């Protein structure tokens, strides 16, 4: 296989994702863990950009990095003290973790060996136009996403209402 610049960048990103994912779960401090998770999400966005999915990459950045990670860091800053480190894992739990990892790896290897990967003709990266994305998101035909879009809207509305109910101070409680 010929080594192109795409392959080099992909290998770099893949290594980076692996490294930071491992660091996310092995580090002792929770803010560092959140930071490594941020790097993992960035590198994933990098893979989307490499594939030409600029919209998906930007969404990954704005939603995960800009939204969810800020929320995580904020809630960590508000709730945890400075000496609030992760507890040590007991040996009995360690066995369960090991079993889960091995099981997951086995399933993954099985699927990987069985699955027929589609051979893409050329490695030309094409950007999807924002117009086609918009019409597909709002249409109800074969490739339309109207139903999931509306379902998520209702779901988010429920979340907002729930948040208000929880945050509301109880007035005149006698």
């Amino acid at each position, binding site marked *: 296989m010929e080594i*192109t*610049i795409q392959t080099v960048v992909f290998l770099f990103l893949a290594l980076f994702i692996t490294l930071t994912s491992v660091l996310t779960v092995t580090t002792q*401090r929770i*803010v*560092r863990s959140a*930071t490594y998770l*941020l790097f993992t999400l960035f590198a994933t966005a990098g893979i989307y950009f490499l594939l030409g999915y*600029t*919209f998906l*990459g*930007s*969404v990954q*950045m*704005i939603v995960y*990095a*800009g*939204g969810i*990670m*800020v929320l995580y*860091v*904020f809630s960590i*800053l*508000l709730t945890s003290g*400075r000496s609030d480190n992760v507890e040590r894992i007991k040996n009995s739990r360690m066995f369960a973790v090991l079993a889960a990892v091995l099981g997951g790896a086995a399933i993954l290897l099985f699927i990987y060996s069985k699955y027929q990967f589609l051979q893409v003709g050329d490695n030309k990266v094409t*950007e*999807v*136009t*924002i117009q086609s994305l918009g019409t597909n998101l709002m249409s109800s035909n074969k490739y339309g996403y109207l139903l999931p879009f509306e379902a998520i809207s209702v779901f988010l509305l429920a979340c907002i209402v729930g948040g208000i109910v929880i945050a509301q101070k109880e007035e005149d409680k006698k």
Partner: protein
Amino acid sequence: MFDFSIVTNWVHSTLTSVMPEGWAVFIECVVIAVWIITLYALLAIALIYMERKVCGFFQCRLGPNRVGKWGCFQVFADVLKMLTKEIFNPKNADQFLYNLAPFLVIIASFLTFSCLPINKGASILDFNVGVFFLLAASSIGVLGILLAGWGSNNKYSLIGAMRSGAQIVSYELSAGLSIMTAVVLTGTMSFSGIIEYQADGWLIFKGHIPAIIAFLTYLVAGNAECNRGPFDLPEAESELTAGYHTEYSGMHFGFFYLAEYLNMFIIAAVAATIFLGGWMPLHIGGLDGFNAVMDFIPGFVWYFAKAFFVVFLLMWIKWTFPRLRIDQLLSFEWKYLMPLCMANLLLMTLMVVFGLHF
């Protein structure tokens, strides 16, 4: 208009004629990176000098006037001083996060900066979703600020970082909605498309009322997003010493400082690109002679003139208004600015549907 893509295409074809394409792309990326960093540093120096002079004149002072004629080498001296200062690490702080935070802030600023189209054919990143990417990239910076506050092991830093986080996250919505108003009118999200749309009149004229409202709300939200002007409470000196960068010295502080000025420039440049036509000269329909004369002025001159005009507006606001309180700041965004932006978006949509724009 001079099309800069002639130069880039020539460079690309020359490089590919002597080496494989991968290496050519790699060399071009390195050249572009060096170019971005150089332009970034030069712009920062120009902006800091401008800020000092403008501030001086607003306060009936002279501003820097000792180093060089009119003090024009003052900033170079300051940069040298900053480069030679010791970088220290606060005790009991998380060293990794403390050292990482300034880089996150500056990387976010670089990413946003590289979206700006300086001349015709001279945009570095020109995606289909360019505007959206710009918003996404600028949202990374707030994490750097939060981590700086946490990593400094200092309560003032932490309060400053929390304020900054709350402020940036809320004002991002207004900034995004005002940009969306422009996207509704132009029908495209790529910067080159938005500028092409303004070939026969800048968007602030073509979109009239909603475009002017969007321009003003974008300036307010953008000003708040880069922690400046009346919205600089994350670093309110009188209450928090210096907010999230209290514990930083030397070049680490320099990164925050650079990012602050460049973020202001980016806000100004985006406002100039989206609402004032970017590198597009002033064209008036019907006056062909006038338009031809205007075309002789190169695009990057137009671009920088407009951007620095908006920078001047932002500095004017900064040195005129007193600082707000944090509750005033947040209620201003959530109760007034964001509903206004939403109503404005609706107004613009109605106008586009009924064809009421020029």
